[in-house]
């Protein structure tokens, strides 16, 4: 047997190891050749049944990353998609039916078709390492886990947990996998091989047989109840006309035994309907855009930052510092005195405990966050980020000192959102050293970071800045030094229009509801209240340049009602929540289009002015920087596919 992607090792005791090593790839993916060879392996094992068959990965990176993405994207017609699904569905059914015991030894990422392969085995072992993650992320690409995931996951972990995993696409770590029954064991790497040998020969009943009675009922007679509950949950986050895939998953599990191929083509939950739906195409586009952003910074050579110095321990600076620490950096955090730094340290301590869920790990993280009132960390820092209040003179003075003390190869960056980078750089001895690294609030939640190149910023400095952004697991978007860069420059006119609507007597609730219905994570008025009306007034002057700013905004601002932070803005805020009354009547779609127009216009203008390199990147920036409805594929894509508004 000649295998290009697998290695088959038979041990003397009768255990066979099927070791996946996808050719010409750093990760294991499940392309046609890999799947064909899996068939050969199963045929071979049918002839000479092993005492046990164990699947594992030869790759450093992880177990299996999922489908072959090129094959997957070229399956853009229902016919091609059907072939792709059929292949996986049949292969895994065949694997699940073998008489000898099978086991998946999962170390590192185990995504999509990888998880479905593991589910088709009798046993699963999760190796207890931070990198081990199970997920069925198909829903995020607008499709369904059609290789048996919808069939087997509910039988193994129960339908409620299964729905949660399939409808959100979220990652399940090794410990959680064991706890929910997805993995039979969670073991450290030092005993994983031995554990796999012992478990595959154990004769233990498979998880399916051990599922609690209530869960079995929910997989059987109570299916409809579970499905209706799941539908309600999904409806809170995604409308069916925008995101058909989660609804399809529920329906295919409930009515078709998890078999995508069994759904008649004319049903809205069929494979045919999904493949033809624009959302699917758009979500795949977003996936590739994300990949494109991830590529920035790859050109920066010999730059692997480990020490970061952040100046300004306010909410932004403190959160940037904490995020960098969480991603492994050692961070010195500077402000005028230790009392100003302390609240940021307190916040970081809670953040680490929540994120790391391990006291020792949280302590080690906190050890890497160093209060530095005198700015001593500048000397050793690889990246220096200024996040002080927006005052040109203060920044220039600060940078004069930083430039004098920083290492020659260190990245010197400003997190400014409203000042011109070139003006700040004017005081530099070497203005080509300054770059903008612009984070969004809340730092931990927002994936995008704008990397701003000023007129004189050296290209390699911008590349290093992008490499740093990647290093802390954010998505870098290169932009030019124009007011508001990309994200704020498109949000400004949009929020301005929304506030003008308020001036016209439309209730903020109605406006926000219209945009949430369109697919925004938060309406523009609530967003204004959240960022603060002082910020909104200032940004309005700079970004909209409107001679007559929204009256209500000015009124609230002058009365000191600044939104969420002061407890009152367009809304009253109680316990961090906007108090909303009923939504007015009227066509919300038309209302939404009115506010989207300035956003789309601004995006188009910024593309043509070259603030962002092309339409694709503009779409990526607006989606990952504002949460702009992902099903649209981004504002430029939306305008192009749906038509001008």
């Amino acid at each position: 047997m000649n295998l290009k992607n697998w290695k088959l090792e038979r041990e003397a005791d009768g255990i066979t190891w099927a070791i996946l090593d996808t050719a010409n790839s750093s990760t294991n993916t499940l392309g046609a050749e890999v799947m064909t060879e899996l068939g050969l392996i199963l045929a071979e094992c049918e002839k000479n049944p092993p005492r046990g068959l164990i699947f594992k990965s030869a790759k450093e990176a992880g177990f299996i990353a999922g489908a072959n993405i090129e094959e997957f994207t070229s399956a853009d017609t229902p016919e091609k998609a059907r072939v792709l699904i059929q292949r996986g569905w049949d292969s895994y059914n065949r694997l699940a039916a073998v008489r000898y015991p099978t086991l998946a030894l999962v170390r590192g990422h185990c995504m999509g078709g990888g998880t479905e392969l593991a589910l088709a085995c009798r046993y699963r072992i999760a190796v207890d390492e931070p990198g081990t993650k199970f997920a069925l992320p198909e829903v995020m690409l607008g499709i369904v886990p059609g290789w048996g995931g919808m069939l087997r996951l509910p039988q193994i972990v129960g339908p409620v947990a299964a729905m949660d995993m399939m409808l959100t696409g979220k990652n399940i770590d090794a410990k959680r996998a064991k706890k929910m029954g997805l993995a039979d064991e969670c073991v450290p790497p030092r005993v994983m091989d031995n554990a796999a040998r012992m478990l595959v020969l154990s004769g233990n009943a498979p998880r399916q047989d051990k599922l609690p009675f209530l869960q079995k009922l929910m997989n059987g007679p109570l299916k409809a109840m579970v499905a209706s509950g799941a539908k309600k949950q999904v409806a809170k986050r995604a409308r069916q006309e925008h995101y058909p895939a989660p609804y399809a998953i529920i329906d295919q599990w409930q009515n078709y035994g998890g078999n995508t191929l069994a759904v008649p083509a004319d049903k809205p939950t069929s494979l045919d309907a999904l493949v033809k739906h624009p959302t699917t195409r758009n979500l795949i586009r977003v996936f590739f855009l994300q990949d494109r952003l991830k590529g920035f910074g790859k050109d920066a050579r010999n730059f692997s930052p480990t020490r970061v110095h952040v100046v300004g321990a306010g909410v932004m600076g403190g959160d940037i510092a904490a995020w960098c620490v969480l991603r492994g950096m050692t961070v010195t955090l500077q402000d005028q005195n230790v009392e100003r730094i302390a609240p940021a340290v307190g916040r970081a301590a809670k953040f680490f405990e929540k994120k790391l869920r391990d006291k020792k790990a949280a302590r080690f993280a906190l050890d890497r966050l160093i209060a530095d009132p005198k700015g001593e960390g500048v000397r050793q820092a690889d990246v220096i980020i200024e996040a002080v209040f927006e005052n040109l003179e203060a920044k220039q003075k600060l940078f004069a000192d930083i430039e004098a003390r920083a290492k020659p190869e260190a990245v010197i960056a400003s997190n400014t959102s409203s000042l011109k980078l070139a003006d700040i750089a004017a005081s530099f001895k070497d203005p080509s050293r300054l770059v903008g690294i612009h984070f969004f609030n809340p730092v931990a939640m927002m994936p995008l970071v704008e990397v701003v190149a000023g007129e004189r910023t050296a290209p390699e400095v911008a590349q290093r800045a992008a490499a740093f952004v990647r290093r802390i697991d954010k998505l870098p978007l290169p932009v030019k030094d124009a007011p508001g860069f990309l994200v704020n420059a498109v949000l400004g006119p949009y929020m301005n229009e929304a506030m003008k609507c308020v001036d016209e007597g439309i209730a903020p609730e109605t406006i926000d509801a219209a945009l949430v219905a369109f697919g925004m994570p938060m309406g523009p008025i609530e967003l204004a209240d959240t960022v603060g009306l002082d910020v909104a007034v200032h940004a309005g002057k700079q970004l909209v340049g409107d001679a007559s700013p929204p009256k209500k905004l000015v009124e609230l601002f002058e009365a000191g009602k600044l939104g969420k932070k002061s407890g009152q803005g367009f809304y009253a805020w109680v316990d961090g929540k906007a108090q909303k009354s009923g939504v007015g009547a009227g066509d919300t779609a038309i209302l939404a289009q009115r506010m989207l127009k300035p956003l789309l216009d601004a995006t188009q203008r910024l593309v043509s002015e070259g603030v962002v390199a092309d339409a694709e990147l503009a779409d990526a920036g607006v989606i990952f920087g504002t949460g702009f409805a992902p099903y649209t594929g981004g504002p430029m894509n939306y305008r192009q596919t749906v038509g001008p508004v």
Partner: protein
Amino acid sequence: MKPFEPVYIIDGARSPFLKSRNVPGPFSASDLATIAGRALLARQPFAPEELDEVIVGCAGPSVDEVNIGRVIALRLGCGNKVPGWTVMRNCASGMQALDSAIANIQNGRSQLVLAGGVDALSRTPLLYSDKMVMWFSRMAQARSLGAKLGMFAKLRLGMLLTPVIGIVKGLTDPVVNLMMGQTAENLAWKFGISRQQMDEVSVASHKKVSNAQKAGHFDEIVPLIDANGKVYAEDDGVRHDSSIEGLAKLKPFFDRKYGKITPGNSSQITDGAAWLLLASAEAVEKYKLSPIGKITDTQWAALDPAQMGLGPVHAATPILQRHGLGLNDLDAWEINEAFAAQVMGCVKAWEDPAYCKEELGLDAPLGTLDANKLNIDGGAIALGHPVGASGTRIVLHLLQILRREKKQRGMAAICIGGGQGGAVLVENL
């Protein structure tokens, strides 16, 4: 004896000393050392990974900080490849760490060493009594349910409620079975030191610390921030309103009723950490460091455990002799204030012809140490004595004083439970 090759002090820092409030303090020993140490390392021109080793003096590491020197080195970000170890010489553990670093630098094993000391005395554990330990042991052996239940019948409330107080054990001499305070009573008796005199020295210690705080003379302190964002910026044991009248009200603690030593004229039980960064001449060159001082001699000595407080006399005198110096030829002295009676005893011993002759083999007494040169910014009576940290703190602060006053040379000496003394000769650069 080989000539002493000077070792350079590059920098130093310490945590604030936090008085024990009879509950476990907000920071563990390794927390204190890490927070102070990382700030110190952050301002150096080299990375923590470039240290040759980390040496920590600690008299009472907690059970989850075994070989605390290594724990701290890893927490400081020195990486897997920088060795870390722990030394223990009771009250001089922090000074022993310095001397161990010096020895390794002098014989060429190391070039760049982070050395210091730490203790979190507020976290000293309560221990089970021997009877209780036996009960646990038998319980573990009991197999049947009946046997286990039977064990409960043998459990006495008194066994559970009379734990051994770890700190009392630690501060009791294991050989002569005297509490440290009782050895200080010995000195008071020997040299005729009155309660009034001890209390005066104690008030002076508080006054000096109070004034030094107001003048900003403790800038070696790295403020601590806890996980709730609370700041601990200063030594908090000092009483700005300390008075003779106030101290007179306290009862003798060690020899109850008839003694003179009270908590008020003893050092405080405190949590703290202190560090020095030591380097060879080569390392100074290599990393272009700017040393702030150098250590030009060290000495250890031992004496009767019941007189342990006179350890500084026995350790410092040979250094004076080697360098041909009188007591007042030095610009400043730090003698760790374990007890007022003990520091005063040292001064009196040098004045005492009989003691100098019989114990030190000197023909004439060394004379009177100028009180204005001794513990210029106060000492452990006001600041506290986190056992392992004090030996490093007095060397660090001595250098601070020399630099501030633009003076040349000083001695830091410390008494050691068990009957020893240590001394370090420091020069400003």
